[in-house]
């Protein structure tokens, strides 16, 4: 079930009203059944995979808490291996097999391993990571093992964030399922407003930009560099609006019912450095990697070379997390390189005792530079394969290929898209909270957004980009 559908609208209304009507002791059951239905609406059979990881991690949590010493570590490893195995089979097996077969081909023979004919379960990486964070936190003693199987299942399956995050930590979410939430009109309003803005980002901005980006990348071999440059910049905003729009609907839907999910985006394109970008982009994932991979590897409290190694590992794994394709690995490599280069640059400037004077102009230049680097990396993220990515890059840097911009749609649509991006940037920068104190202000703004979503929305049943991860 996708958020930008009538099915979800009706589902959300029924579940939310029922949630507040039922006695507290039955609410977990309602949410769990609702979440199962929400997930099964995509491909019903994949609930079995989800069920597998839930059962493994539920018992792993209890065993971890009840045991001591080496046994604890063993249970943790077993749980992590089970989770990673699911990911490996469904997400990475065919990719690894393909690369092995390429090596075999180079030596003139065929791969001995068969390809699996399976579809990637929606949101697999998200709920697997959320499940893994639970066992790790129980192991670390930061979270008590959840003995209520239904509540634990709900922690993994809570429908607003089940298929595309935010990837929650057990300390933040599990206790909320035990607490009784009474209907709060203020939360209801702010949650609904957040959902409306998320929907606007998705259907008005992201899906409009998608039409132009898809056209340009599909025809990248014949289009000029200027078109591909504009398409890539548009893609930066498409993926942002798509993913942050999803997160806002998820956070808003949970907020209406009284739950607080973690923030996932904080105006990332206003970052003045790559390290700042990663504190503002997909926060729940970047903190996951920081907490569960970067720090255990030693973080920056180690030798310089090891620190760089740790950084690169994090970003390569992050790339691989997004998808089983070399394009994602290169995307991660680029971000790792950016960070290492930034550290080297800072060290060099420190050495020669040079400091850039703080000014609005310098900050602006930093923002533009950071944005340019991020956009460059997005080329690999968007491209179907490495070859296409290099075709796009080659054309963008070949100024002789620049000609009239043809994004498959008319000039009015392109300028309208630019205007939407400018408005979005202003809103993100200056109005983090929309004034909804009075009913008139709230309902008139809500109505306005709904009307704009209807009139200017692009309804193509396009799924959210991050569902594939």
């Amino acid at each position, binding site marked *: 079930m996708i958020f930008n559908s*009538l*099915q979800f609208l*009706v589902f959300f209304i029924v579940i939310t009203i029922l949630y507040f009507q039922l006695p507290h002791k039955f609410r977990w059951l309602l949410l769990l059944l609702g979440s199962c239905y929400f997930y099964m609406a995509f491909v019903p059979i994949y609930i079995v995979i989800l069920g597998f990881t839930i059962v493994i991690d539920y018992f792993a949590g209890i065993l971890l808490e009840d045991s001591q010493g080496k046994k604890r570590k063993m249970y943790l490893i077993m749980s992590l291996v089970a989770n990673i195995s699911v990911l490996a089979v469904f997400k990475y097996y065919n990719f690894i097999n393909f690369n092995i077969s390429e090596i075999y081909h180079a030596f003139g023979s065929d791969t001995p391993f068969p390809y699996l004919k399976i579809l990637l379960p929606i949101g697999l990486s998200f709920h697997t990571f959320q499940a893994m964070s639970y066992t790790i936190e129980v192991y670390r003693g930061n979270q008590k093992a959840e003995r209520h199987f239904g509540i634990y299942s709900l922690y993994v399956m809570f429908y607003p964030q089940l298929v595309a995050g935010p990837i929650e930590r057990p300390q933040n979410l599990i206790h909320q399922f035990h607490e009784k939430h009474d209907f709060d009109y203020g939360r209801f309003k702010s949650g609904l407003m957040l959902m409306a803005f998320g929907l606007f980002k998705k259907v008005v901005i992201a899906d409009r930009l998608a039409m132009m980006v898809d056209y340009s990348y599909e025809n990248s071999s014949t289009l000029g560099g200027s078109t591909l440059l504009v398409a890539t910049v548009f893609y930066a905003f498409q993926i942002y609006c798509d993913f942050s729009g999803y997160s806002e609907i998820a956070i808003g839907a949970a907020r209406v019912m009284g739950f607080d999910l973690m923030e996932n985006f904080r105006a990332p394109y206003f970052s003045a450095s790559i390290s700042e970008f990663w504190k503002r982009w997909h926060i729940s994932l970047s903190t996951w990697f920081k907490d569960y991979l970067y720090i255990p590897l030693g973080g920056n409290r180690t030798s310089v070379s090891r620190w760089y190694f740790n950084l690169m590992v994090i970003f390569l794994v992050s790339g691989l997390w997004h998808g089983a394709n070399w394009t994602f690995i290169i995307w991660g490599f680029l971000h790792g390189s950016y960070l290492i280069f930034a550290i080297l640059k800072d060290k060099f400037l420190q050495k020669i005792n040079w400091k850039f004077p703080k000014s609005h102009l310098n900050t602006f230049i930093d923002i533009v530079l950071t944005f340019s680097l991020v956009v460059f990396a997005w080329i690999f993220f968007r491209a179907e394969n490495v070859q296409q990515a290099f075709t796009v890059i080659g054309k963008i840097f070949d100024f002789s290929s620049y000609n009239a911009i043809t994004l498959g749609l008319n000039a009015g*649509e392109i300028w309208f898209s630019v205007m939407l991006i400018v408005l979005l940037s202003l809103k993100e920068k200056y109005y983090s909270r929309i004034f909804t104190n009075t009913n008139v202000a709230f309902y008139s703004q809500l109505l306005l957004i709904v009307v704009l979503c209807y009139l200017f929305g692009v309804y193509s049943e396009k799924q959210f980009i991050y569902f594939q991860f």
Partner: protein
Amino acid sequence: MKKTIAWFFVILFSALYAFASYGDFEKTIDFRNKSNSVFGSDKYKFGDLFGISYYPMIKQDLSKTKRTFPVENPKTNKKINLCLAHDSYLGKDFLASKKQINSVDTIYDLEYPWFRGRANAPVNLDTSKTNVLVFEIVERNLFRLDKKAALNIVNIAAANEILALNPEIKLKPVKKKSKIKQFKEIIFNTRINKNLEFLLFDLRLFTPFKELKSYINHTFFNRLPPEVFISENQKQEYISDVKTSIEDKLTVSETEKTVALLNEIHDFYKSKGFDKVYFSIVPNPVAIIKPEALRYNGLIPMIQNSPNLRMPMIDIYTDFKKCDADLYFFSDTHWNFNGFTLWINKFNATLNADLSSD
């Protein structure tokens, strides 16, 4: 009180969801199509293309269109047992007024499998009459007609010698779905969004909003749904069917495959006892109106002019090309009553000539 209202909404939306998953839509559609109030349907009232685009500048109330030409009906003295496979909704009009069709005594209404997906009612071939089989098909559906569909469309099941001779013609009974599969299809109905959209918004109450959206998209962004495009003079909407109409160049081998299929259909049904078998392709509007500007690919003339064609054709393409009158609705993919009447006249004339010469 608050509790009562809350439960009211739970029941209301749950019922809506349940109905969208497993409701009797035929009754709802009938009710809405008949209603002239704001709760009536706006999907087909002004044409199927209007129902896709809602572009307000081309909007024709189909129920208010009238015939221009009289029906010419020179009757033969032979009684005709007519089996008509058709995909025109005006075919219903055809069937309802059989007096306008030559000396037709009995008519069998046969539907193509992509409409209902169920077997047609059995046909009784009557050797005391002239058994005529006519395939009328719109150009854009031509490539959907494959051998299996064509050879199974007539369910000859008469208790006569023809059936005895050809028992294999009977359609295989449709396999029943398991209870679990049926349950799954209801619970996880893949059409639920379309059904909800129909239930909630296929109402004339919302037509102005849909028109406003369409107007904005077309005026400012030059964009309409991909299925539809509009003529340069802003008077006609077309279905954007690449394969059978525009842009896509056809090769001789592609059209010859269709010719071979038509020959096979002809020979098959002749061998099963039909006295006459005809085929008629109703041109897409782009084939008739400004074909050069819209780059019509010439499918119909390529088939009809093929030297290998044995299937007798009721050639409406040539008549349509010669006619100056409007033959299509402006906001619909189908012919209007003029086009339809021309077809009947052509059909009657063809049949009359063939049967008189026999």
